[in-house]
Structure formats: C-alpha cells, structure tokens
C-alpha cells in the first residue's frame, strides 16, 4: 500500500515533454520529464554525516521467537536479543581490539581501555545503536592544504569516504557501508559520477542497520546501480538482463543453489524494466525515474513460480521473500565478520531471526558481534582500507594528502573501484605484490612519524626490551602472537651491536615500528 502511494506521488510530480536531444552523439526524440526537485531522494553530500535515528532501547519489532530445539540464549544480554550463543569469557582489551577491527577500523588512542571498561553488551551497543549526526574526530581532510573538492577533483570521492573511515565515531555505520559497497559492488569507473556513488554510500549508511528489504529497493532505484547494471537501458521490447541476473546471483540469492532458473532471470528482468534517465551533455545522466507508461513491460511475468504483472518493486520483494534468501544473507553477512562459516544450527537460528524480524540487519549484526565465534575463533585478514584507516586512527593522523588512494589501491582495494560486480575477493588480500604494498603503506604512515636523523644523536638510552615495548605502544599495544613477541625481542637484541650508539638505537626503534605494523600478526586480528 505504501509502495503504491509512493509510486503515485512520483507520477504526479512529473510531466512528460518531447524534445529533440543529442544522446550519445545521436539526435533522438526523447521524452523529457519535467519534475519538481527531488530533494530527499537525491541528497547531496550533507546527509553523509547523518544516518537514520536509531531506537536506543527497543530492538526492532517482531524479534525472533525462541528456537525450538536448544536452550534459550544466556541471560547476560539485557537489550540485545541474540538467537545464538553469546561469548561468556572475559571482555578486556584483546576482545575490544578484535571488536573494533572487525566492526570498525581499529582503535584510536584510549579507545581500547574505554571499551574494555564496558561489558560485552555495552561495547557492542556502543557500535550498533548510533544516534544523530556522526561526530568526527580530528581535523577535516585536505590535499595540498585545500579542502576536498569531492565532485570535481579526481580521487577526492575516495578520500572523502576514506576520511570518514578514519574520523567518524559511528564506526560500524562506516564499516557496514564498506561491507555493503563490496556486497553491491558498484564502480565509479562505469557509473561515471561521484555524486551517484556517494549517494549510494549514503543508502548503505541509512539502511546498513535497518531493513535489507528497504536497502534492496533503495539500491535498485538508485542512480548508481541503474547506470552500472543498465537499469536505465532496459525497457519494454528491449529488456536488459544485467541487473536481474546480478540481483539474484550476487546480491540476494546466490548462484548454483537452485534458487532460480534462466527463465526467472528473463522474467525478473521484465519486471525490473522501465527505468530511464536523461542524458544532459556536460552533466551526464539526470532525472532518473520509472516510466511505467512508456518503458515498463506490463505483461504478466512468472517468477519463482508466481505470476503477476510484476513491477520493479515486486521484483525487489520477490527476491527478498524467496525461501533461499535468508540463508544467502546470513552466510554472506557472517563472512564479513568471522572467517569460518557458522555451524548449521547457528546459521538456521540467524536465518529464522532474520526472516521473522522482517529482514532487519541490526539484530543479526548484534548477534554476530556477541557470538563466541567472533572472540574465540581464528584471526581474520584486515582489508587494505581497514588496515590503512586503522593505522591513521592509531596515530591520530589527518588526511592531508591523496597518496592513500594510490597506496590502498596498490594493496588491492580502492574505495568506489571494486574489481568487478562481485566485489573484492576477501579471501585473497595477501600475495607478494600486496604484502610489498602494505609494507609501503606502513612507510607512508611513518612519514613525519619516524625518528629522523636530525634527532638521532640525542636519542635516549633504551634497552632491547624497552625498545620493543615502546614500538608496541606506538601502535597501541596490539595483540601479538606468542611466536611473534619473542621474535621481536630477539630482533631488538641482535640486530644492532651491544651497547648501540644513539643513532642505531633510533634506527632500531624505526625498524621495530615498521616490523610490528607490517607483521603478519598485525595484518590480521
């Protein structure tokens, strides 16, 4: 009903006029829609700092009924209702560190102790229940001393978002935005508009802790995806299957699971038809709208065995309500936080909770962030953007240069430039090329942070143990494995002669800082 009202309002807002226009260099008669401005649908930059007001106390309506077979979840959680096991070990700096790297971009100074002072639930809630405009720590980003010019300067869109990873206190909002950017991988190289890309990121900020069903509709009808997967060129009589296929294969259902047939792809594509936009020379695509009268294929379609005169909104509903969607969603979301898949029991409980909540994302994220699998399970490689943002956070460094774009790209991840529509390969971040790139990233974080030769001669006395402790503290005392700690001490003791002169002590300190941040341990958490 609400969907119907929305559609009617949109039709009324616009009227159609015929115009001769140059489209891709060819003169065409096009239907131009004159529309009132659509402020709420296509926000500029401003809303990037905000995200929807989130309820502080009550979890989303219709929380999961208790699973039938096993005992109810431990009663330790007061606010969060998790359908799965809850971590019951100590919650200290180590657990806080893992939580911040998995659900954010690592700690800033003081943050580990602050989080460790809370209990598990308090720490998780501090991430999952943000309210209002995200506070930003530290100075605004600049390049060559100038503020970013996000829509005009090449790379500044990437820097704009990268800065938010570093400075936003709503860390999970930004981390989920990155996760959903990977999930709905859309590239500015094909979209050709920073504006559209940033708007899409705003959708992820808005819906990342909200309803996945809403996110599906918002992304489907958003300019970035409409351009990226040819939504605006799919019309009655000339159906383009690009988006229909990826919507099912990559975004909601998964390939080779028996979820859909090739016939479903073709039929869903017809339901999704009808979007259009105007090409304005010097501006690009504008005035995106669904042209039901002229471009939508209004015939009956049969999708997943159901028939009807489905629209794009029906298509979005059908894929989310598909019985195999919850299992796809839970497995994929889980994989961004925990490197080992959930047991079938845990997966089933999360799927039921997700379905029963009406496709709410927050309850699943909260359950994952409280799970023993997160704190007791194996380590996970930090994606390049996460690692780099985290080092800048640890050192409280501002974005004052564009080099982070190149550096993270060299390590295999540039925001707004996923390799293809399936996103980054999150299992293959590290190889001989990218390890070297990560080594260079540490070097660049150390620019202005290393002990330079000008002060070597006055470098204080420092034993090997003191040197290691100081270098570890430089990176906020990250958890290091039992194998690495003695190796660092041995290095500090043997890499320089006994009683090293001041200049060697200083260089040893630089070397230790490099070694810790480049270490395999620090690449994972």
């Amino acid at each position, binding site marked *: 009903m609400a969907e119907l009202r929305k559609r009617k309002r949109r039709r009324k807002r616009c009227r159609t006029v015929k115009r001769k226009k140059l489209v*891709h*260099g060819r003169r065409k008669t096009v239907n131009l829609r004159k529309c009132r401005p659509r402020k709420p649908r296509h926000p500029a930059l401003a809303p990037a700092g905000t995200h929807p007001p989130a309820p502080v106390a009550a979890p989303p309506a219709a929380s999961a009924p208790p699973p039938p077979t096993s005992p109810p979840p431990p009663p330790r959680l007061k606010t969060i209702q998790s359908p799965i096991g809850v971590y019951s070990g100590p919650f200290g700096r180590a657990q806080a560190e893992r939580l911040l790297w998995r659900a954010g971009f690592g700690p800033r100074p003081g943050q580990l102790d602050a989080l460790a002072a809370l209990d598990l639930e308090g720490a998780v809630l501090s991430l999952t229940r943000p309210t209002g405009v995200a506070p930003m720590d530290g100075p605004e980003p600049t390049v060559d001393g100038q503020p970013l010019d996000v829509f005009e300067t*090449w790379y500044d869109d990437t820097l704009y978002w990268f800065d938010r990873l570093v400075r936003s206190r709503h860390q999970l909002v930004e981390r989920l935005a990155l996760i959903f950017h990977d999930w709905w991988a859309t*590239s*500015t*190289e*094909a*979209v*050709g508009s920073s504006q559209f890309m940033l708007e899409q990121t705003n959708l992820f900020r808005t819906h990342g802790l909200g309803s996945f069903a809403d996110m599906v509709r918002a992304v489907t009808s958003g300019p970035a995806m409409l351009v990226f997967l040819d939504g605006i060129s799919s019309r009655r009589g000339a159906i383009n299957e690009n988006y229909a296929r990826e919507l099912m294969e990559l975004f909601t259902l998964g390939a080779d699971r028996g979820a859909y047939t090739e016939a479903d792809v073709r039929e869903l594509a017809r339901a999704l038809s009808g979007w259009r936009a105007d*090409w304005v*020379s010097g501006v*690009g695509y504008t005035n995106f709208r669904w042209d039901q009268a002229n471009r939508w294929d209004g015939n009956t379609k049969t999708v997943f065995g159901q028939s009807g005169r489905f629209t794009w909104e029906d298509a979005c509903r059908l894929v989310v309500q598909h019985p195999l969607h919850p299992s796809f969603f839970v497995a994929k979301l889980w994989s961004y936080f925990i*490197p080992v898949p959930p047991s079938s029991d845990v997966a089933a409980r999360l799927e039921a909770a997700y379905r029963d909540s009406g496709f709410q994302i927050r309850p699943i994220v909260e359950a994952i962030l409280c799970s023993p699998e997160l704190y007791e399970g*194996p*380590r*996970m*490689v930090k994606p390049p953007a996460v690692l780099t943002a985290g080092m800048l956070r640890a050192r409280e460094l501002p974005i004052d240069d564009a080099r982070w774009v190149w550096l993270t*790209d060299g390590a295999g991840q*540039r925001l707004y*430039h*996923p*390799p*293809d529509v399936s996103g980054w*390969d999150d299992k*293959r971040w*590290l*190889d*001989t*090329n*990218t*390890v*070297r790139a990560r*080594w*260079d990233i540490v*070097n660049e974080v*150390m*620019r202005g942070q*290393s*002990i330079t*030769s000008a002060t070597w001669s006055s470098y204080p006395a420092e034993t090997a143990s003191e040197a290691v402790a100081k270098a570890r503290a430089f990176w906020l005392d990250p958890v290091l*494995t039992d*194998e*690495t700690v003695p*190796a660092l001490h041995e*290095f500090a003791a043997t*890499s320089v002669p006994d009683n090293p002169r001041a*200049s*060697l002590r*200083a*260089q*040893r300190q*630089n*070397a230790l800082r*490099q*070694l810790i941040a480049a*270490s*395999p*341990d620090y*690449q*994972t958490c």
Partner: protein
Amino acid sequence: MTACHCKDFSRSALLRSAAAHAGAGLRPIEAGMPAAAGTGLSRRSFLARSGGLALAVFGGGALRPAAWEEGIAAASAAGPAPVLVSIFMSGGVDSLSLLAPVGDSRYAALRPTLALADSGVPEDVFTEDVRLRWHPDLAPIRDLHRGGMVTVIPAIGYDDPNQSHFTSRHYWEVGEINPLGRVGWMGRYLDRHGSADNPLQGLSLDYNLAPGLAAGSVPVAAVAAPEKYRLWTRDVWDASLNARLNERFGALGAQPTADAELAGARDAARQTVALQEQLAPLSGRSPAWTAPASYPGGSFPRRLAVLAEMLGMGLPLRCVALDANGGYDTHDDQNGSLPGQLNLFAASIAAFQADLIARGLADRVLIQVWSEFGRRPRENGGGTDHGAGGLSLLIGSRVTGTLVGEFPGLATLDAQDNLRHTVDFRHVYKHIVQDWLGVDATGIVPDAAKFSAPLALVR
C-alpha cells in the same frame, strides 16, 4: 591555441589504467565510448620461482600457482618460438613529424610553425619515398631502416576513423571495429595457440594488463619492474640493520600456525622476502646485470632491457606489450615536447635491437610500434589535433625492410581534413599472425578475409 583534449586524455589514461586493473567498463569518460578489452578477467598474483618474477596473472583462475610454474618451466623447455613485442605510442603520435613530407607542396602551408626543415643531411632522406625525411631525433631508427631492419607503414588506419583516443585504441586493441570487444587481438592468438598454464606467454610490462593481451581463456601476466622489487624502510639507513629487518620479516612469516588466515599472511610475508632475494641480481641500479648494449636512462628503456634479459633467461614469452616513453597527444607546444621524446624512444629501440642481436635473439623478435591515430595535417598554431591515418613500424632482423602502403600525400585529405590511410591495421595484424606467429589468422583477426592483398612484412 585550440581547444585541447590533453586534460581529458590524461584523465582517460588514468581511467584506462584503473579499468585494465579492475576490468570495469569505461563508458563515463565520453558518452558512447566502448568498454576496454580485458573486462571480466580477475587478477591473481603469484611468484614464479623459476624466473624470479612477481606476476599479476589475469585469467586462468582454476589453476594453482604451482601449475603455472610448471607450465612456465615446460614452455621454456619447448624451445624457441617467435616473440611479438607490441609498443604503444600513447596519445596519437604525429606521423607527419616522424617522417616529414618535406617534398609535399602543401606541407609547409599546413604546418607554418611546425614543418620540419629539410635538414640537408643525405641520410635523413627516406630512401623509399624521397618526399619524406626522418625526424632528426629518429636517427637511430633511420639507421636501422638503412640496415634493412625497419618496415615502414606510413599511412595506417581504418575506414570511418574515430578520433576518440579511447575508441580508436580500443579498435586497435581488440583488432576489430567493435566497440563491445572484450578480448585483445593478441589474447585471441594466445587463446588458440597458447597454453593453459604459462602466464608469461602474454606479458604486460606494466602495473596493469595491456588490453591487447586480454585473453578469453588462458592466463596472461603483468609485471612492472622485476628489477625494483624490494622493501624499503623509512629512516633505517644502517645497511646491516636494514638487512636484519628484512630477514626478520621473512622469519616472522616462516613461523607455523594453525590459524588459517594468519598462516596465509605469514606465507605471503615469507614469499615476499624470498622474492626480494631472488630478484636481488636485478634490483638496485639499472640494470644490475651486464646488458650487451648501452641503454639510455628511463623506465621505457629499462623495461626493454629487462625484457631482453628475460628473453635471454629463456623465459617463454610470446606476446609482450608495453607503452613507449612519454605521451604523444601534442595539442600544443609540439616542438617543445616531441623531439626529446622521440630521441629517447629511438635510442631505446636501437639499444634493444642491438641487445637482441648481441644475445643472438634478434631473429626471434618482432617489434611492432603503433599509435591510436595520426594527427591533423593542419596545425593549430603550436600543436596538432587528433587525426586519422598514422604511422606504424615493424622492427627486427627478419622484417622485409620495405615500405608497406604508400604515403598518400597531402593534396587530398579525407572528409575531416585528415591523412587518408593506405593500409588497414587489421591487414597488418593478419600478416603478423600468419607470417610471423605462423598460424592461420581466421578468428584471431575477425575481418582477416576482407584483406586479401599480399602484404610483405617479414621474411
């Protein structure tokens, strides 16, 4: 000056580099622009221990790196095979400066400030068409031509020429007039005659894959600078400390662990340090090995020097692609920028050829020099805008060394006042495939049948 697309060009060059890396479409730069070849290939990286190379491998996803190493070893053992080195002069080089038609009556009028004077040096006269003079900075190539090692195609192009850098180079890259092409022309050759386990068969000497090498089914590779692969640390100057730091980094990677992702991170660190050691003979000052020829400085000649060394090592290269030094989109200040670039270009090519001869490899290697189009005969006051017919060179000890196609002259230009082409690039591709690579061009050059006239490129 006239409206200059230089800014657009550098922007699209950036995009192209990103796209070849990422395999995404390129539509946004200019409406109607085709996507780059090479889309859809995923990139994997591995270390070929046999060759000591860090490669970004594109395609061939089903194989483990170990299989590639075996493939490289097997292909190396199979013995010599012809090698094609495709060198791209990016931006649309001004053919009317490379071989200046000083004997054409319209030349001086069309180029009031840019026309090259007749140098009076007898050697500069192009022996096969005395209207033409070699640019003085191309003297090393002029001499190779006089030695019978350069086949000149003075007016190459295609019908209905497209003056977008991107679109035109795309046609050259995919080897057909097809905006939607996804596989490069050399990639198609490798798909049919290459192997499933030798990524070195299609080698891009760059950070990203050259679209012309993008294959549909077999793996190909990119490596920018095997001779510069090393770990550097800020403000650690002490050589012994630095060596121990790198050593320790590798040692951290050698520690066993049951944790899967940590084990992967450690393995990668260990391999990185091992690779650095393997490449040590190549790293450092350029080039560390003793090349039998003297190369000028710069990344283009260095890549050629590395290439000669790799061929000398017996690595199984088949098609190699790299960009020439500089950029040739000379919309303005052409006389300021072009001579120095041509000078370095020619010196590099001559050094590479001398290197190959000294190593006894010259008969195995064909160099193909190309650019996406030539430039407008009528200058714009200090530079030249995008044109149509351009120049291509085939260089090697087994080329015919004779003019292919005639220089059409400036008296009659095409409908857009550009140089008419007298040879189609696909015609040249057809004969490179047939006469140099030695296989049927059908399917590799889709329109090969349309170009039935004989074309003597190589001996």
